[in-house]
C-alpha cells in the first residue's frame, strides 16, 4: 500500500500534469473573479470565502479522472486487482495520493490567493483549517466517481455530473465555516460537521470505490 502510494506520488510529480494543473487552474479562477465582478475590495472580501472554496473544489475535480484512468488503460489496475492487497486498500492509497498532490497544495495556495481577494484578517486560519479538513473528503468522494466512470471513454463530463452533487455537503460546511469567521460568528460547529463528513468519507468511500472498480474490472 505504501509502495503504491509513493508510486502514485512520483508519477504525479514527474509527469508534472496532475500536480501543476490543479494549482494553475485554482490561480486562474481566483484571478478571473476580479475581472468578472469588478475590483471593489469590500465586494471581493464578501465573496472571497465562497470563491476560494469553489475554486479549490473545481481544481480538485479537474484532476480526478487521473486517479484510475491511466492505470486502467495500460493494465496496471488489473495487475493491482490481482495482487494480495484488497481493492479498498488500493482505492484508499490512490485517493490519499490524490489528496497529497492536489488537496494539500490547494490548501497552501489558498492563503496567498485569499490575500489577493482581500479576505478579512481573522478568516485565514479558518480558511486554512476548513480546506485542510475538507479536501480529503473531496479526494475520497472523487475517487469513488473516478472508479465508477473508469470504464467509460471520455467519461470526464459524466464524472463531473456524478461527483458535483456529492460535493454539495462538503462545500456547504466548508464555505459556511469561513463565512461565519468573516462575520465574526463561531465557525467551529460547521468545521466539526465538516470533519465528521471527512472521516465518514475517508472510512467508507474506499469500500464503495472498490465495489465500483470490481464491477468495472470484470
Amino acid at each position, binding site marked *: 500500500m505504501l509502495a503504491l502510494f509513493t508510486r502514485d506520488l512520483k508519477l504525479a510529480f514527474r509527469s508534472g500534469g496532475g500536480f501543476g494543473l490543479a494549482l494553475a487552474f485554482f490561480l486562474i479562477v481566483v484571478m478571473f473573479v476580479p475581472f468578472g465582478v469588478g475590483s471593489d475590495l469590500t465586494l471581493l472580501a464578501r465573496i472571497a470565502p465562497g470563491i476560494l472554496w469553489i475554486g479549490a473544489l473545481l481544481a480538485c475535480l479537474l484532476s480526478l479522472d487521473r486517479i484510475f484512468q491511466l492505470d486502467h488503460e495500460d493494465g496496471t489496475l488489473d495487475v493491482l486487482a490481482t495482487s494480495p492487497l484488497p481493492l479498498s486498500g488500493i482505492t484508499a492509497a490512490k485517493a490519499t495520493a490524490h489528496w497529497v498532490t492536489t488537496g494539500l497544495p490547494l490548501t497552501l495556495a489558498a492563503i496567498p490567493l485569499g490575500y489577493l481577494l482581500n479576505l478579512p484578517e481573522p478568516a485565514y486560519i479558518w480558511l486554512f483549517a476548513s480546506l485542510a479538513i475538507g479536501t480529503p473528503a473531496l479526494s475520497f*468522494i472523487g475517487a*469513488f466517481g473516478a472508479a*465508477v*466512470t473508469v*470504464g*467509460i471513454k471520455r*467519461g470526464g463530463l*459524466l464524472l463531473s*455530473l*456524478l461527483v*458535483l*452533487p*456529492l460535493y*454539495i*455537503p462538503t462545500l*456547504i*460546511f466548508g464555505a*459556511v465555516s469561513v463565512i461565519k469567521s468573516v462575520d465574526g460568528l463561531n465557525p467551529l460547529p*460547521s468545521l466539526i*460537521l465538516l470533519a465528521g*463528513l471527512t472521516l465518514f468519507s475517508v472510512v467508507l*468511500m474506499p469500500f*464503495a470505490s472498490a*465495489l*465500483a472498480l470490481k*464491477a*468495472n474490472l*470484470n
Partner: protein
Amino acid sequence: MSFWEYANPVKFMGLSGRLIPVLSVLTALSLAVGILWGFFGTPDDYKQGSTVKIIFLHVPSAMIAINAWIMMMVTSLVWLIRRHHVSALAAKAAAPIGLTMTLIALGTGAIWGKPMWGTYWAWDPRLTSFMILAVFYLGYIALWNAIEDTDVAADLTSILCMVGSVFALLSRYAVNFWNQGLHQGASLSLDKEEHVDNAFYFPLLVCIAGFVLLFVILVLIRTRTEIRLRRAASLQARNT
C-alpha cells in the same frame, strides 16, 4: 409461493400484463376525481385565492419524486444482493419518472411562488434540495446510458444509487444549515395534527393516491418495455 417468484421475467410479464388494465382504470378514476374535486369543489383560500389549488399537483408530485428514489434504492439493493434482472430494470425504469416528477414539483412550485413569494425561485432549503435531487436523477440516468454492458451498468448505477442516497440525505440537512427557508411546513403528517384544512385534505389524499397509482403503472409499463428490449437484443444477438 413467494414474492421472489416475480423476479422471473415471464411471471412478471404475466402478472403486470394483467394488472396494468385494472390499475389504469383506477388511476384515471382517482386522478379525475381528485383533480376535479380539488380544482372545482374546494373554496378559495382567504389569503392565497385560487392559487392554493396548485397544491393538488405540487404535493403529490413532490412526494413521488422523493419516493421514486427510495424505490430505486430498494430495487438497487435487491439487484446487488439477489441479482434479479427485473429489479435492476425497474430501477432504471423509475429514474426518468422520478426526474419528471421532480421537475413538475419545481415547476408548479415556481408558478405558485411568483404571485405568493414574488419570485419564481428562491434559494430556500427545500427548493435547493429538490434541485440537487434532480441532478442526482440526471447523473443516474446518464450513467445508465453511458455504459454498454447491461450488467456492469446495473452494478454501477446501483452502487451510485446507494452512495447517492446517503449524500442526498446529507445535502438535505446541510442546506438547512446554510439557509433558513421561505417554504411552509409539511402539508401532511401522519403523527401530528399539523396539516392543511380538511376541505383541501381529502381531495389531496385522492390526488396522492392517483399519483401513486400513476407512478406504479408507469414503472410497470417501462419495466415491461425494458424486458422486451432485452429480449429483442438477445434475439438479434442469436441471429447474427
